[in-house]
């Protein structure tokens, strides 16, 4: 029998805090951050080809569920992460904005693909040249369409953002000012 290989799996480190017999104390930010980042419920706003790559990411090979996104929520009220996948035309922009406004805080926006990030290869009269013209975006995933590994990397970056965010951020005046810049109240 060959020698047993050491497992390459690393257990995630606990955040800094005070540990004792049967208890662990850390700041609320960090605890909430861990909970939020590992249970993001995405809203797949899939319009075109990137939607098919998202279906491939959700399927067994590149399983998205192991990142906590087992339950896709199509109702904006129950979703944390708005994943905009595919070309957004000017006709669809008000609909996207309405979906974004219905989501409850905290919410993150992931723009997947070249068309959602910047209009992509379609520099035409009918295509919105990037959703950041109407919404604040947290993570952009370039690609046409991006590989599932890139999508998972984007989700992991959102997880990092969710983990490191302070719990007061969404009530702060800077955040409200940023939303006002887009015309969102």
């Amino acid at each position, binding site marked *: 029998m060959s020698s047993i290989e050491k497992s390459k799996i690393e257990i995630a480190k606990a955040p800094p805090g005070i540990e004792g017999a049967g208890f662990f104390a850390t700041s609320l930010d960090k605890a909430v951050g861990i909970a939020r980042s590992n249970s993001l419920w995405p809203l797949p706003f899939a319009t075109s080809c990137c939607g098919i790559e998202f279906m491939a990411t959700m399927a067994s090979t590149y399983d998205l569920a192991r990142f906590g996104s087992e339950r896709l929520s199509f109702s904006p009220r129950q979703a944390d992460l708005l994943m905009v996948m595919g070309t957004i035309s000017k006709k669809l922009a008000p609909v996207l904005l309405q979906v974004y406004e219905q989501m409850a805080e905290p919410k993150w926006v992931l723009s997947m693909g070249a068309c959602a990030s910047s209009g992509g290869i379609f520099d035409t009269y009918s295509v919105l040249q990037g959703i950041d013209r109407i919404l604040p975006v947290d993570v952009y995933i370039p690609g046409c*369409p991006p590989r599932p590994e890139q999508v998972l990397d984007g989700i992991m970056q959102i997880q990092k953002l969710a983990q490191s965010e302070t719990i007061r951020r969404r009530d702060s005046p800077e955040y409200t000012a940023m939303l006002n810049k887009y015309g969102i109240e």
Partner: protein
Amino acid sequence: MSIAKNTSTDIIEKEYTTLNLGPTHPATHGIFQNVLKMDGEVIMEAESTVGYIHRAFEKLAERRPFYQITPITDRLNYCSSPINNMGWHMTVEKLIGVEIPKRVQYMRVIIMELARIADHVICNSVIGVDTGAMTGFLYIFQMRERIYEIYEELCGARLTTNIGRIGGLERDFSPKAWDLLDKFLKDFPPALKEFENLLMRNRIFMDRTIGCGPISAERALNYSFSGPNLRAAGVDYDVRVMNPYSSYEEFDFIIPLGTNGDTYDRFMVREQEMWESVSIIKQAIEKIKKEPKGVFHADVPEFYLPPKEEVYNNMEALIYHFKIVMGETEIPKGEVYHAVEGGNGELGYYLISDGGRTPYRLHFRRPCFIYYQAFTEMVKGAMLSDAILTMSSMNVIAGELDA
């Protein structure tokens, strides 16, 4: 179909509810809106609004030289993009009048049939998901990953392949591609059988889909249906048989037909077409073995990009490369129409060239756009969940609907 009666008072006038289905909706696979007038759960009228991802392909094509149009044809029916690419290249080859060697035609057939399998895998598994059966989707999507691996080996991309050149393919199938293809042909039939066992004779699935969203053959022809939707209604129109291209006349395959044109027939027609595609690929592999090795493009230097090694070493190849990329080649004037059997039906390209480096007019005959009009007629009198199932069984791909 029963209309709920209000038992408490005598109601003479009935008010219909208006329900807005979309544009974003979990069950619509794509972005299109349907405003439904409903009497309880039954749909009285439906009005569709499309155009939510209109990307102006036809205007875009007037700006781009021929090779730059291939990436946008990818994004028509993006579930089976190689078929769109090959169709476009065949249109240009018709315009310039070039003869493609047999081996290249067989290789193109293999790629197109793989794309057809990929498209029908998505459609059938999504019909399953809409009836509540997620398992089939998860199992059969693995096979789509295998097809993606073959595409990656052939052209480098998974989904929007931009595969091929005018005159053939950009490279020969590598030994790894042949291995992946053989492995796929060995593993796909048992996987498809497993998928079928889940759904095909499943009592619940059959009760749910039989009689759901039917259309008669006469109405389907009047709505210019084509592809699996028309074949489910009983009309055996397949562009591969009617106007064969790329040596399809040498292949031996049947055209599966349905009888009622309902969801179950559409599911079954696509299922059987996948089996036929597997058989066509096997026949193509046998035929390729008899052709001289190594041929993967026709001899048309004004349109076929020369291999990169020659471009760096050979003056003539450099000049051709420059001319093709900059769009300086002599393009003949003409007006052609070429149709291929896409995943959804007759995908046609109407090209008018005036000798300039970009087409004067390129019109796409998009099957999805044409048959989606019939949706309002197909769901009249059906319940809401049947409407969802009809929509998904028609395989409406938003890219092809709006272009």
